């Protein structure tokens, strides 16, 4: 299956400190970031900023699934935002899911019900772009990918950016978030899998998320092996370079 290249737009909301829309693999997510702002008394922490993530589904009101995603994102994003620079503050990230990929095989009205993993990369990517747009100080950037292990004639193979159908038939699926330095930030898996399969999925995801970071040091590799997915670091960099160049044209 071919997936269109990721698309992003920064600073689309006029009133928030930072915002971004990210479109990839059938998902469209818009995020707004406000911060550092005053935290509610109960969220206040004397030594660090509280990162508040709110996920709103494409249809209906959020439920347990959204709360779960929020808690995953909150803990991963607190790791990359320099929270200790803003004690007693709040950094608020609102993620509105605008569209999710349709399953061509099942006729369903209920878009909400389903597994959580495949949406994590889109949410993380959008949140990171919006944080960059808001110029919230961060230790590093992050990129995310989802890998499905699908049965293929007796054995299994890892599929990057699986379609809804592949996710349904997959033995297991894994979501990974990596920092730009190649450190693992979040790993969520579901289904039955062996350690070898997990290692394989991890290696594939690492390649997609951190390729550009490593390329800098080495001599140019002339596409001798086919890239499994989009180079997310290069995508992030080119998006931000476009934004910065536009902002600083007066110089």
């Amino acid at each position, binding site marked *: 299956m071919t997936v269109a290249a990721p698309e992003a737009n920064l600073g689309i909301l006029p009133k928030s400190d930072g915002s971004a829309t990210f479109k990839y693999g059938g998902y469209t997510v818009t995020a707004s970031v406000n911060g550092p702002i005053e935290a509610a008394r109960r969220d206040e922490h004397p030594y660090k900023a509280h990162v508040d993530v709110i996920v709103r589904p494409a249809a209906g009101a959020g439920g347990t699934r959204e709360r779960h995603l929020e808690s995953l994102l909150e803990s991963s994003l607190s790791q990359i935002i320099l929270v200790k620079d803003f*004690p007693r503050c709040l950094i608020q990230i609102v993620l509105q899911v605008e569209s999710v990929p349709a399953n061509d095989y099942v006729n369903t009205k209920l878009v909400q019900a389903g597994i959580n993993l495949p949406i994590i990369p889109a949410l993380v990517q959008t949140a990171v772009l919006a944080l960059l747009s808001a*110029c*919230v100080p961060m230790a590093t*950037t992050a990129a995310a990918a989802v890998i499905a292990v699908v049965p293929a004639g007796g054995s299994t193979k890892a599929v990057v950016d699986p379609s809804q159908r592949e996710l349904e038939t997959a033995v297991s699926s894994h979501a990974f978030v990596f920092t730009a330095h190649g450190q693992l930030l979040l790993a969520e898996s579901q289904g039955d899998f062996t350690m070898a399969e997990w290692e394989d999925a991890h290696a594939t995801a690492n390649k997609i998320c951190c390729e550009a970071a490593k390329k800098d040091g080495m001599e140019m590799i002339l596409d001798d092996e086919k890239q499994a997915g989009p180079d997310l670091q290069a995508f992030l960099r080119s998006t931000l370079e476009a934004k*910065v160049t536009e902002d*600083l044209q007066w110089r």
Partner: protein
Amino acid sequence: MAAAASPIVLPGDAIDPSLIPTSNKKRPLRLGPGLRHVPPDTLQSTVAGELITDPKKNTMYIEYNSRRYIASPNDLVIGQIHHSSADLYYVTLNPHAPQALLPHLSFESATKKTRPQLDRGQAVYARVAMANKHMDPELECVSQQTGKSEGLGPLSGGTVFAVSLGLARRLMLPRPREDGGVAVLDLLAEEEGLVFETAVGRNGRVWVGSESVRTVVVVGRALAEVDERGAGFGEEAQRKLVRKLVRETKA
């Protein structure tokens, strides 16, 4: 004026040692906004922007445009009185952020008996006297050295407009038209003959005062438009905009 080869950096990028100015041995290296020192000897950026180095002053910082102001000492800001306590005014610099403190005695020739009476909502032009991540910022409207106001104090009449922090900094340059590429104020005054005064705060606030309400509106709209069009909005385009605005508002 294009800054020669100032690299664009993303959060977490290590600054190449060759970019660090070394010519001036007398002064210690000073790091400005957007940079942090990771012990023992790494310099990292924390925001996406352009790395600017000044070998003469031995300083480095990241130039970027954002909307949320983070107070730092000696910045000139425009705040709004929120409320007053026994000996302090609480001043809003940013929406939803903790208020800054302005002592009643931090005005020119203020004593316990004669202190300025400022109402809620009054705009003040002040300098950030102390900014510290663990405390609310403190302001002053008087120079500590000379005891004079030096242009600081309440801003009466006129209107405060919000702009992006990047535009505010451009307006605060000694020559905004030549160095910052913002010509609208000069054009409005010189070519259209409007009479007005302005004060620019680093927190992204511009105060415009004039006898005529029409002038205030025209200036505010011109600034908002320049901010919205981005940094690539050249002087000729600004001249067209000024003419259009003046024509539209003619009674």
